[in-house]
């Protein structure tokens, strides 16, 4: 059986900047996986390579066994990406946006599933509103809906809760968790480490284009259980993250 995501020896340079340095990683079907790191660590570059938006200088990546370059059609059909930036097409309504996105994947008559996504993301009363008129949180929901419209088995969310309110965050995580329970592979990048700790079974940490930690969330917390210096409370992922990023020993 293929890994949901397979990354082998990926290197990407932007001029003198090494964005990714020989990164290898496998994410299995059904995992809820966290990809963490400070700004500029290479998370979005890695996601962009998986999505076919960026071409690696070296190495290969595959989604459910489909190479993202050579077999891009299958790879893209099996991948849904929620981009980090709040982007939208100002010409269309929410429903038109979702129908177009479905059509780009060659899926016709997808209205029943589109209606379900709209209902589950609390977009029903905005379905016929122009995208320009939506709040930031609502636009974020539409981005999530667009990533799900072709029913991909692998979903990548690049900082999906950046700048959104608590209510949306909670409803979004409930929805994403349900997708994961039903077998979807979820990859999450976030700067809200408590979210990653609560949701992700396994975590990779990137620093300056290299994977500096890769383990189950539980193992990472156990390994760094002695890190807490004040002796109060239990170690959380933030402590682990800070320690690893500051060069702590694994």
């Amino acid at each position, binding site marked *: 059986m293929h890994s949901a995501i397979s990354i082998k020896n990926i290197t990407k340079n*932007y001029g003198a900047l090494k964005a990714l340095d020989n990164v290898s990683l496998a994410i299995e079907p059904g995992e809820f996986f966290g990809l963490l790191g400070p700004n500029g660590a290479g998370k979005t570059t890695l996601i*962009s390579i998986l*999505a*076919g*938006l*960026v*071409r690696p200088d070296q190495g290969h990546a595959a989604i459910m066994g489909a190479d993202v370059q050579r077999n*891009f*059609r*299958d*790879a*893209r*059909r099996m*991948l849904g*990406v929620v*981009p980090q*930036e709040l*982007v*939208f*097409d*100002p*010409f*269309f309504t929410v429903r*038109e946006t979702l129908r*177009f*996105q*479905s*059509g*780009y*994947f*060659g*899926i*016709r008559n997808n209205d029943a*599933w589109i209606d*379900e996504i709209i*209902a*589950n993301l609390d977009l029903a009363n905005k379905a016929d509103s122009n995208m320009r008129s939506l709040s930031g949180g609502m636009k974020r929901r539409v981005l999530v809906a*667009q990533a*799900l419209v*072709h*029913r*991909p*088995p692998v979903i990548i969310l690049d900082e999906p809760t950046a700048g959104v309110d608590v209510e949306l965050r909670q409803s979004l995580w409930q929805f994403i968790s*349900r*997708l994961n329970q*039903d*077998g*979807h592979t979820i990859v999450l990048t976030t700067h809200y480490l408590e979210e990653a700790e609560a949701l992700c079974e396994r975590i990779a940490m990137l620093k300056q284009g290299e994977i500096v930690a890769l383990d189950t969330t539980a193992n990472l917390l156990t390994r760094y259980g002695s890190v807490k210096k004040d002796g109060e409370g239990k170690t959380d992922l933030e402590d682990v993250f800070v320690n690893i990023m500051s060069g702590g020993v694994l």
Partner: protein
Amino acid sequence: MKTALNKPVLEYGSGFPTLLRKEIMRFYKVAFQTVAAPVLTAILYLMIFGHVLEGKEIYGRLSYTAFLIPGLVMMTVLQNAFSNTSSSLIQSKVTGNLVFVLLAPLSHFEFYAAYILAAVFRGIVVGLGVLFITAWYGLPSIEYPLWILTFAFLGAAILGSLGLIAGIWSDKYDQLAAFQNFFIMPATMLSGVFYSIHSLPPAWQVVSHFNPFFYMIDGFRYGFFGVSDISPWTSFAIVSAFFVVVSVIALRMLQKGYKLRH
């Protein structure tokens, strides 16, 4: 709720028809700007030049107004085909929403075909608008409708391709405006829309033959009057060759992901 993986297996087709439809819907939603405004501009040209040059004859038998109408129609077709692809791409790039198309399993051929056909559609819709509005001046005769359709399609496809190249190449509106104002606009205005090149000094006649837009206009006009500055077959050969060149460049840019996939 049943989630996506519990649904029946999807059947995938091509994303091309949807991208084509979206590109047509995009200009249709702002039809005042994309259709009505260029029609009005063409009418103003016709009113002003038709009035100033009234009584002048071209090819020894055509009134200047009759000569001008096909040229204005074709100029409108060309400029609007260019605008459709170039403005769509630069807007999508600047606002970032091009990512939704790039994430989809569309080949570079599908991407190209959808953008170009939408550009051809807009060019021809606006061109027809100009033709019908100018009807009260008297519709020009139509000698060879197939030549008219051939040159309209090829011309619009060429300008759509140039718009795609310009839209991909430009990082900001300023660069696109430069491409439009310093290349497309002079090439169309100096292509024989407003005059027969036989009325030019010999040196400028030679220069005009290096302007591919001249052959589009001249061939298109031949379809109306059965008379032109050069043979329509020569124009067809040159316009077809130019279409192949710009298409290959545009397709290569898309295939390589030039300024789209980094």
